[in-house]
């Protein structure tokens, strides 16, 4: 959500430098392929989600967990702490839709390179990180260009 809102102030700059390739919220996206940076929000509640996270990890050079759920698991993981009555109340849903027993944060399953905690995430840290990536890629491209010309 805040990722979209950050574009209000930065779209003129970012849309020239960043290819928002697999953001379903922006477009009907192609099947996942190699990517430089993956931003992942939300906690992991099912095997299906875990598999998708592992796929993203295998395709992304850098993975960033954004928001409290991705970084700490909470509040999505609040059911991990439910008492027996609460557990019994949600059990039919967990079984019906094949939920995992416990909700997990991203780093429980894959290597996370950067994390931006908070609910909502800290927008200034997000902007800072994006600009850092852009600068790094710019430098990398300049070095590659230099190599090919010398």
């Amino acid at each position, binding site marked *: 959500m805040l990722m979209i809102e950050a574009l209000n*102030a930065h779209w003129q700059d970012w*849309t020239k430098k960043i290819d928002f390739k697999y953001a379903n919220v922006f477009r*009907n996206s192609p099947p996942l392929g190699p990517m430089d940076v993956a931003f992942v929000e939300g906690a992991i509640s099912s095997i299906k989600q875990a598999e998708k996270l592992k796929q993203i990890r295998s395709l992304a050079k850098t993975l960033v967990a954004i928001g409290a759920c991705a970084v700490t698991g909470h*509040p999505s993981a*609040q059911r991990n702490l439910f008492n027996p009555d*609460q557990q019994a109340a949600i059990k*039919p849903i967990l079984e*019906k839709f094949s939920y995992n027993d416990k909700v997990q944060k991203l780093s429980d399953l894959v290597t996370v390179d950067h994390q931006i905690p908070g609910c909502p995430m800290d927008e200034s840290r997000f902007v800072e990180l994006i600009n850092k990536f852009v600068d790094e890629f710019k430098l990398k491209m300049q070095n590659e260009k230099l190599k090919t010309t010398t």
Partner: protein
Amino acid sequence: MHQVNLDLSLQEISKIEGGAGLDLSISNNVVTKCEFKITEYKRFYTQAIKGKTALAAPTLLARICGTCSNAHILAACKAVESALKITPSRQTQILRRLVMNGLYIRDHALHLYLFVLPDLFNKNSLLDFDEKIPEEHQWLDDAFSVKDAGNQLSILVGGRSVHAPYPQVGGFNHFPDSTQIPIVITKLQSVRPAVIRLIQIFTDCPWSQNQDVPYLALKNGQVCNSDNVCIRQTDYRQHLTHRILTYSQASAYVYQNRPYLTGALARLNLAKNPPPPFPSHNLYHNNLAQAVEILNAIDDSVAVLQSAEFTPESPIKSTLSSGEGSGLIEAPRGILYHRLTIKDMMVTDAEILVPTGQNQLCIENDIKNLVNNHLHGVLNKNTLRHEIEVLIRAYDPCMSCASHFLKIKWA
């Protein structure tokens, strides 16, 4: 006539809030299956809230959804106040109206510009608009400016556009900075021409499909239907019947045994002297209704900010510590209902009805009608897929909200 047989499965529908899919089957020209599935996983908020302090309920329940967080805060505040017999001050009501206006502007703009507009231009994404083409540059600029104006209003009054920290049970803990008010007024006024352009493009939009459903909206403090039969907000829940959809993570509801519609189109249809073409039964006019509501929210906010003076006041406290109450508000996507039972200032039970859950059956019916209209012509799977997505987007569903928890007994 040729016989149509088709199976269509849409996974991860794009340009909507959260995850949803559709399973559709047509056999010998008859739609045999049309299941709109909300695929977001539940976070069980109505269970998790049990045992938590009532004063923290708005903040906790707002985590149901980032997009609609401020609406959840206000509905939960209202539910706690209703349970503890707190009557908020007139100033609090005005500030809450401004918080909602900020949300309407940002949320409707997000939906119309980022999700719907690309379909009008036959593009996949707003980010594919070409900055070098003046018209497309204008739409990009409009999109982010209008959203930003809504956010600035929310920040001024609520402290943040998402999960606003200022509103709380009984009032506000912070008041608008008077030096910022003229800046926000100027910002709101500056995007007015953009919103007029938005209204025009959706007025000219040719998409059309009529629906025959009751519309429900909050009107003069009561929930009214299309026949102008009105009920008290506190009686709302008992007029609805819960329907279990075994394939969806969300709960569905019927009103008088029929699917019903809540949201911008319902509000405009039931408004006193609505602008033409309202009242309308064209489901795609939900987009136009949202554009009109952005303009109304801007004009209302500017008028309030120009005339009001905000004085710090302490949140109203109650002498009661137990009770049951409900909070019903018109969130951008429609009627949002929170009911809380409080004992010794702790929440012991909760129920939440969100607009997308309430509209779910209506969405399915309209998809069926759309598909049936296609059965008489040449059926192109890709065209059908696209048109179904456009229809679903017109409803502006929010899956994060829809997949909170409600106790379900599976058959």
